[in-house]
């Protein structure tokens, strides 16, 4: 039994969740915790999709709404709304999704590249596509979701406050 | 094993001496200068004193003189840790009442051999 399991190529375990009717997966190894929705503290001068920060056992962790990140609308935050706390290296952040579904094993060999999906989904944040029990699961590339430099660039692009402009 | 007082203002040298001696099973008291060594010597008797010569507050030579004035330290071996370039300091140490010396640099093996030499 044991040997059998070890012999097979280790499957990727993915936590799947739903977002606007689609199914996404995030590598279970990156997931630290799943929490029900709770109020966050807003942070000024941040993109819309960063809802704010949360106290996670003393750490101040930013929370991002994946709907807003993908340019979708969010009607409300309710009982089903869930936050998945993920870790990239030492950094933690949370993503808000509609609901968590399941943990599934995905054969790495069965992962397909992401086709161009036009404007429907921002494919920059996807690693690939996989089929699991007849359903398509989009595998999320969490590292790309909140890279600090990404955030900085966005910030710089905003017509925000610049000390140099004092001159006028 | 023996109870040894190690005196050196250099924390690294003192650390090396103490660590080596403790490794060999001795009980070591550390002191940063002659004055503190004297305080430690008064507080309890030691079987051997190893002391640097150049130290702030009270140097090794003065410390030996003071130690020898204590009844409990009349015949206790005191070795000066000294560098080869200062023969006259060695003799100054002797004159103050030191038993002998150990020439710097020395390694842990040399230190243990010398300690064994004095303690028998």
């Amino acid at each position, binding site marked *: 039994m044991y040997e059998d399991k070890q012999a097979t190529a280790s499957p990727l375990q993915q936590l799947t969740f739903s977002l606007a009717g689609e199914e996404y997966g995030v590598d279970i190894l990156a997931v630290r915790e799943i929490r029900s929705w709770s109020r966050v503290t807003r942070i000024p*001068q941040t993109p819309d999709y960063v809802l704010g920060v949360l106290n996670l056992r003393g750490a101040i962790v930013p929370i991002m709404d994946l709907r807003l990140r993908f340019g979708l609308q969010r009607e409300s935050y309710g009982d089903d709304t869930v936050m998945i706390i993920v870790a990239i290296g030492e950094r933690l952040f949370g993503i808000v999704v509609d609901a968590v579904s399941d943990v599934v094993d995905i054969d790495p060999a069965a992962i397909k590249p992401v086709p161009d999906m036009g404007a429907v989904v921002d494919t920059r944040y996807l690693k690939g596509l996989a089929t699991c029990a007849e359903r398509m699961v989009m595998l999320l590339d969490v590292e790309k979701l909140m890279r600090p430099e990404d955030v900085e660039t966005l910030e710089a692009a905003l017509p925000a406050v610049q000390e140099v402009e004092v001159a006028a | 094993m023996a109870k040894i007082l190690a005196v050196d203002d250099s924390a690294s*040298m003192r650390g090396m001496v103490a660590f080596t001696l403790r*490794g060999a099973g001795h009980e070591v008291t550390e002191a940063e200068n002659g004055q503190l060594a004297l305080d430690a010597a008064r507080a309890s008797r030691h079987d051997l004193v190893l002391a640097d010569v*150049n130290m702030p507050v009270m140097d090794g030579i003065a410390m030996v003189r003071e130690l020898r004035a204590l009844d409990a330290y009349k015949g206790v071996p005191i070795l000066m840790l000294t560098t080869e*370039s200062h023969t006259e300091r060695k*003799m100054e140490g002797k004159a103050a009442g*030191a038993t002998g010396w150990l020439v710097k640099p020395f390694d842990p093996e040399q230190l243990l051999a010398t300690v064994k030499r004095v303690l028998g």
Partner: protein
Amino acid sequence: MSAVDLTQFHKTFFEESLEGLDAMEAALLALGAGSTDSELVHTIFRAAHSIKGGAATFGFTDVAAFTHVAESLLEEVRSERRAVDAELVELLLRSVDALRAMLDRSGRGQPVADAESEALRAELVRLVSGEAAVAVVVAPKAAAVSGWDIGFVALPHLLQTGNDPLRVFRELQQLGRLEVVRAFIVDGAPSQLSALDPTQCYLGWDLRLHGATTRADIDAVFDWLDGDCELAIKPLAEAPAASAAVAAVANEPKPAAPVAPQAQQAIASSETSSIRVGIDKVDALINMMGELVITQSMLSEIGEKFEISQLERLRDGLAHLERTTRELQESVMRIRMLPIGSVFNRFPRLVHDLERKLDKRVKLELHGEGTELDKTVLEKIGDPLVHLVRNAIDHGLESPAQRKAAGKSETGTLKLNAYHEGGNIVVQISDDGAGLNHAAIVAKAQQRGLISVGQELSDAEVAELIFQPGFSTAAKATDLSGRGVGMDVVRRNVRDLGGGVGVRSVSGKGSIFTITLPLTLAIIDGLVTAVGSERYIVPLTSIVESLRLRAEAVRKIAGGGEVFHFRDEYLPIMRLHHAFGCVDAITDIESGIVVVVEEGGRRMGLLVDDLLGQQQAVVKSLEAHYRRVQGISGATILSDGSVALIVDVGGVVRLGRSKAA
């Protein structure tokens, strides 16, 4: 027995050596300034001596070789065979620098000596008289013989030196077969037993040592007894013709000198740095822990079987617990506090070097060296201070000729002062130089496009210009205060520490740069304010007053800004809900509260909904998991577990200015 791993002592060796070099430098500077205190020479000598001993022991042979020559030179000074002059001080200061660099390279496992250090060493060697004669004297080849006759008479005081004839016998026995030919009591020994002093030794021995032993081996046994005994050592009369054996001994390869391996591995110079804590601070902690334990046991006793009659005791106990906890917290924070003197200490040398380089005369005064700062702040404040000191000497102080012409003493004064003020540490760098040149600053700011031509500026505003990014960058950048770094970088560095920097200047009289730093980084006293559904903490140290304004007290000014009258001046109002984009906040000024804050001499009113109370806030970084946010210095966790952001007053003031602009 396993060999002792000496690398564990390297870090300590480097630390103490660097401290020794600092002490050496300070003493050299004092000597250079004309002090004749003989203790200074001893300090310098002792430092060099310790470094040499440690370096040789721990296998840093290049460092040991270098210090050896420096020490020889210092020995001449100590024994008054050489006078201290400016050149010698300069040479030794350069040696200090070279040693610092060598130690640094040792720590990183790089080749230690370089061309520069070798050249300096050669210079030192040339100076040391008769250094060449110090070459190792090769002992004449020892002829082995079949044995030795040793006459050994102890002097009465031998036992008092801690030596023991038994040790001599033991060691001689290890060299060969030892025969005691005769043991005797020396002349002059008390004839009566009652007069015998047990600490005195009156014995002598005639010994014969059999075997092929060299004279040097025997001398080594007696080396510590020089002056404690009379010795007569003669080879045995009948030397055997065992020349083959002699040759064998002579040809025996000498064991290689025990040289500890040069440290290859860099000492882990990771960020896990250590901190030295005074024993008094540790004792204070232990005392408070004791208090805490007592209070805890008292409280649990009350809790065991609580009756309402004990309510008073419970209250007392809780009050005591609160007090002890607070004290414990303060003591723990105090562990991280180190005196600023360690940073100030580098300035005598810097000033000394700058004087020579710039041909100026400067008297440096240091005050408040004992003022303690958080270790992190201390480590990061050095560079900004160096910059300000360089700047003061380069641009602030005039040349001796100019000073004389202006009716001032030819020697300028530069003062560094550190002190507590409120919850802050203030560090001032003041000089009695020419002061800021307003015309030049305005001209430069116009040229750089920072201000428009014809713009009217107050003195404070002009002074503020030098901190603007872009003001000093492309300047001629003399290699001293320039280095391509401007005052804006100084200000940014200080702000990163949660502090501020400003300048006051009087033309012809001098300038004062004032750095304000938080006492500790980790905890602040804050006022919790409500803005809509959010909570913002305003550091208490920057609050001047809080007040409720009447609508008519507020004036709208051109461009949409609002000001109000406060203590003879008009202050701008910054609506925090605007700055931070809160939608559900009070917008009517009369219903809200204005918190007057001050930063770097600038005041402004922050409009909030309400004040919720004062609280100590443990500052948490937003950057750990997110990034810096302008106007926010960090976050803290409120008692209900929610997060509140801490307002960076300086940042908000700047935010306000740029929004107004």
